[in-house]
């Protein structure tokens, strides 16, 4: 069962102190079930402690570790060496930071900047409807919940935003729209006017080309494009 892969990682580096970027090549011997975050840690421990990258939960639940691997935005904590070799059919990997936000150092981007779009979508209930009974939960049937529950699984890893083919400057982007759509579909939310204004604004859903690139890369397998298409179809708009 012991199998060693000889992996070459070409990692894009950036040093903010001298504002220089370059590509650095690391060769690592890796067991089959090491994840890419394990490789980064191995490089830190054995070759170059200065290489900087991000992760937190390291099991696909927090969205901190997204990078581009051979061009594809992915969670580096979910990708096993063995699977990566099979998927890309190579042992050579280009590792780059996401482009949706400015790079802070090496693979770390200023994700707060990207979150500004999510924040604009107000990822909370703005005006909760009073529950039927005081001090009780709302009644939401499983069938009602089922309509939007998939969209609540988003971990804001921004893989979809990275893959999106619409202009990032002019477009709020898939995950920010998703955050708003969840609340439009949530029966507890009374405030719909503001939300719809945002969804149908010039930075909203009409910028989407329905290419489904977002759905293809989502590590949580959320069909992001489907939810955006629901909004595009005018389904939520009282005066389309």
């Amino acid at each position, binding site marked *: *069962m012991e199998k060693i892969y000889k992996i070459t990682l070409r990692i894009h580096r950036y*040093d*903010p*102190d001298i504002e220089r970027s370059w590509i650095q090549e690391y060769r690592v011997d*890796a*067991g*089959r*079930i*090491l*994840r890419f975050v394990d490789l980064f840690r191995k490089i*830190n*421990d*054995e070759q*170059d*402690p*200065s*290489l*900087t*990258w*991000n*992760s*937190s*939960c*390291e*099991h696909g*639940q*927090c*969205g*901190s570790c997204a990078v581009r691997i051979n061009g594809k935005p992915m969670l580096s904590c*979910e990708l*096993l060496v063995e*699977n990566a070799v099979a998927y890309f059919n190579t042992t050579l990997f280009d590792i780059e930071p996401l482009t949706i936000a400015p790079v*802070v*150092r090496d693979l*770390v981007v200023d*994700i*707060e900047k990207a*979150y500004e779009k999510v924040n604009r979508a107000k*990822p*909370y*209930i*703005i005006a*909760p409807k009073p*529950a039927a009974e005081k001090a*009780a*939960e*709302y*009644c*939401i*049937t*499983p069938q*009602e*919940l089922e309509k939007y*529950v998939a969209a*609540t699984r988003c*971990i*804001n890893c921004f893989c979809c935003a990275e893959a999106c083919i619409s202009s990032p400057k002019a477009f709020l982007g898939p995950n920010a729209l998703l955050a708003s759509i969840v609340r439009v579909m*949530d029966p*507890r*939310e009374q405030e719909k006017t503001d939300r719809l204004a945002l969804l149908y604004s010039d930075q909203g859903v009409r910028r989407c080309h329905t290419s489904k690139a977002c759905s293809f890369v989502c590590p949580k397998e959320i069909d992001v494009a489907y939810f955006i298409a629901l909004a595009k179809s005018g389904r939520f708009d009282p005066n389309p």
Partner: protein
Amino acid sequence: MNRALQTSATLLCDLLIIGAGGAGMRCAAEVLGKRPNSRVIALTKVPHPQKSHTSTAQGGLASVDPADPADKIIYHMFDTWKGSDCMADQNVVKKICEAAWEQVIWLENRGMHFSRNQDGKLSKRTFGGHTLNFGERSAFRAVFEADRTGKGIMDTAWGESMKQGVSFLNQSIAAELLFSDDQCVGAMVFLQKEGKFARILSRATVLATGGSGQVFKVTTNCRQNTGDGLAIALQAGLPILDPEAVQFHPTGIVGPGILASETLRSVGGILRNKDLEPFMEHYAPKMKDLAPRDLVSRAIETEIRQGRGVLNPDHHIEHVWIDLRHLSQKVHEEQIPEVSGFFKQYVNLDARTELCPVRPSNHYHMGGIPTNLSGQVLNSSQNPVPGLYAVGECAAASFHGFNRLGTNSILELITMGKFVGESVLEFLKEAPQKPAEASAVKTFSRFSEYLEGRGTDSIGQIRDALRTLMTANVGVFRTESGISEAIGALKELNERAQKVSLSNKSLAMNQELMQRWEMDALLAVSMVIARAALARKESRGAHFREDFPERRDEFNHHTLASMTVFGDVALARRTVDMSVFNAGGAHHENFNLIERKY
């Protein structure tokens, strides 16, 4: 030559929350909900609050629904007390269990997407140790959001606090608490992205830094859970309550440590050693693989220690196997699809045809910064420190005693988060409008030492040695000789750490510098865990001493461990609150010193 480090800015606020996880955010939402114009600053080490560890909790959150005719708050209290191995404080248990349902509704009304039953009401499920009628049968007491309950709580608490105007300082660490006289007046903060130091002066400060699982080699905890809150409290001369109480889950997946749920064993999974022998029959002849968590963890560790473990070549971790191959296709598909999925995803094994590697995984720290019922931090004389609060996994009001029940942690976050918020509000009424001045004493000297280290050692290697050592000697099994050896080794590791030279001396987003800082926290937390474990010559809850396998009455007290100079640990005791028992009344006998038998 000392590199000139300086404070770039001083920020003033009413409330500083150190740690934007579930506990910190629930507290922030409470304060802002009642006092909307408060200036609240929340720090988090991660790039964004949503990336906090709370987001990873899966199972659920325990709370007795007043509409449920079968369940009663007193049963939940009893289960928590029994689970704690008679070490929880009963006044805290009562307060939290009574407050539970209201907080569930708080979350629901603010948009948490709880799973529902056919009536549209909150679904409930059972969890280990939660029973009806004092142990008679399992209780359906945990509400949940599919397998991502923690994410629901994190998103809701973060959303609410953002809505009400918390200022977040992400990717920032609190490096030192600031005091004026004996009052806490804020913290010295290192802003990682900018590479700058800021002094945050606040009228009240809440520590909510979460767990310390990175002390151990295999852990379910986030990468950032290095016990910082405990370390900065120790550095400020404050004690840690019951640091030796550390929980292990028997089946963490090698190497990421991710939980492989108990369900695997309940559907018939069999643990096997290197020789493929089903070893649980030697340890629990009747219950075998279904014995309680701590017993199974000990059995696995024994096999490994006696040379019957398997070394994983990729992660260099020894483990045993869980065998699921004999289970029917139906069981695989219907009962354990998700956990099977984890094995596929993280070890690339097909659980239907291959053996799966598991090892006890560090899961939760019951010990923490001691607080009273309202979350005020207590000093070594057990008096509240004015202006300082602690909540969440880093705190110990002692709801969990020596063993936490599943689903009780998240409950603690939201209930205590609210109570701490209320207590802060009271304090803000009295405290002066403008926070007092104070400056950092240690931060700059420590950071310049880090930047000037001249040795050849590597942080990665020292950290690895520490985590291996703690797992082997102060983990699931503990003995006097093992712990003593660890204490000696920790001192050596500390010396090695002091000499590490950083390859990158930059301040901005320097991960290596951060890891050097975290190394000190890991060392400090490890040392107090080890010293407290050495002194507790008995076995209780998650603390198991092979040389003293029984629970002993003379240790019916909490430990308080203080350490301002590395290695100089002072230990003291605090009595366990037994107010529910002492109050008499119906069922009070169940709150006496009872045996933890299931």
